[in-house]
């Protein structure tokens, strides 16, 4: 068998989620080698048949995928319990690793869960996955110097309104419809006092400071202001838009000083791009 064909056959067997016999009989494997001809490619040893030998690789594959996904999604693993295995199998079949690192294996988990009907409560699981993905993305994001309160205060008020605050590369803003954040808080809780999934709207900022990832809650109005700033709006237009919204989305003028002070201390901003001075 030529090298390319051999590798395609072996990969088809190794990544197959069923038994080794099923893997050898799979359509992908049979395209290169009929199961009856296994020993024309692989030798048995004195102690193991050819099928038992390739089974060593086939059995290790799902363990490796499971470890990688559990590392990035501890909350999801905890909530699903034994069902996590089925999730890993289905997910890695739909989204196998295509890169040189396992760090990106779980990038499609929220989108994958959004398409699943069987795993419930679907909204809770999707929110939990979105939050956990935000945390891993923040963890691996590029390093940047952070804006200090002194940097902000040093800017002339006349220029401040037109300035654009650069948000830190680690900032992730997550709006949740379910209590996924509260659940994630308890995952390492030895008392196992985990909240039951329930609908609960909340807004969270995820940011990295001193190489550690933190989460802090936001009001809806603050969430929208930070979203505008992250999208590149100037401070003035963000404030203007926020004060023009209605209901819980609306910000009051007195909110901003406290918000900007807190966000700067939390490491939300990495710099400030100066605007032109306002006309007198």
């Amino acid at each position, binding site marked *: *068998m*030529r*090298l*390319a064909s*051999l*590798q*395609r056959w*072996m*990969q088809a067997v*190794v*990544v197959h989620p069923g038994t080794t016999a099923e893997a050898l009989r799979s359509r992908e494997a049979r395209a290169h080698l009929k199961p009856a001809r296994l*020993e*024309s*490619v*692989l*030798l048995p*040893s*004195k*102690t*193991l048949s*050819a099928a*038992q*030998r*390739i089974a*060593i*690789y086939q059995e*290790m*594959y799902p363990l*490796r995928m499971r470890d*990688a996904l559990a590392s990035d999604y501890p909350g999801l693993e905890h909530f699903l319990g034994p069902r996590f295995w089925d999730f890993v199998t289905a997910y890695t079949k739909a989204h*196998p*690793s*295509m*890169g*040189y*690192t*396992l*760090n*990106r294996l779980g990038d499609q988990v929220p989108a994958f869960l959004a398409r699943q009907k069987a795993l419930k409560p679907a909204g809770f699981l999707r929110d939990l996955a979105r939050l956990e993905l935000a945390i891993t993305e923040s*963890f*691996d*994001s*590029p*390093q940047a110097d952070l804006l200090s309160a002194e940097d902000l205060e040093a800017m002339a008020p006349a220029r401040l309104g037109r300035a654009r605050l650069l948000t830190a*590369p*680690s900032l992730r803003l997550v709006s949740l419809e379910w209590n996924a954040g509260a659940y994630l808080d308890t995952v390492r809780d030895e008392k196992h006092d985990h909240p039951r999934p329930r609908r609960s709207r909340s807004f969270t900022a995820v940011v*990295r400071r001193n*190489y*550690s990832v933190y989460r802090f809650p936001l009001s809806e109005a603050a969430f929208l202001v930070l979203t505008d700033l992250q999208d590149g709006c100037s401070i003035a237009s963000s404030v203007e838009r926020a004060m023009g919204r209605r209901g819980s989305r609306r910000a009051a003028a007195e909110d901003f000083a406290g918000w900007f002070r807190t966000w700067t201390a939390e490491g939300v901003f990495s710099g400030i791009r100066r605007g032109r001075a306002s006309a007198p």
Partner: protein
Amino acid sequence: MTTPPQGNRFGFKDLGIGIGLRTVHYPHILSTWPKIDWFEVLSENYLDTGGRPAWVLDQVAERYPVALHGVSMSIGSTDPLNREHLRKLKALADRTKAHWVSDHLCWTGVLGRNTHDLLPMPYTEEALAHTIRRAKQVSEILERPLVLENPSSYVEFKGSSMPEWVFLARLAEEADCGLLLDVNNVYVSSFNHRFDPVKYIDAIPADRVVQYHLAGHTNKGTHIIDTHSDHAIDEVWDLYALSCRRTGLVATLYEWDDDIPAFDVVVAEARKAEAFRKAVSAPDRRGPAPRRPAMSAL
């Protein structure tokens, strides 16, 4: 008195005795800057992060010699080389002033997919020519000689026309590669495939060996799995002693990747290599006599 062999043909330094840089040991390393000769860094863990792992690596690379060791080059794959991966690998090697860059003689996937396993090559002329061509390309892209590690394996291909040690030696000579000789892998594969590990060691071009790996494994009775989860057994140390006599002093690293104990436990295991290294650097001094590993164990 016999003169111990001197160095490798690439001029890569004998870095002494090192261990792998592992996340669980970060707090200990950062708080104590322990006495250890060097660290081996798992390349892929540091290629795409700007967070704490990258910061820790920079701190370590400022204070210790490092070498990069990868698991996803897939040198034997029939897929095209991943040039983005190689470009990032070179940048990481430059940034950390890595002494060399190694990966495994294996393939990890095809059709764009990565199984993240070190899958074995068939030892055929076709596979050899293919791997030589790619190893040369990689060395050009990295602008340094590629160093390849012998794998541990659990299957043998009927189509193989040469033993692994011949394949590896020819690959190293024809692609001008360095070798990372994992003596535990030699032992594991010799058990699984019932060959003489000493014959393997004797066939390796000694002047191409730039690094050793030592590790523990898990013996399942019918076969051995290369788990890196334990102390090395005596037979592996014996192989190391035998090989050191051929290569002279070469950078040596102890791998412990599963059920990782405290930093000092890993270092203590690694430092067992010191006695064998002393025997090589001063053959007349009393040191552990090299023994031929008991073939009955296989």
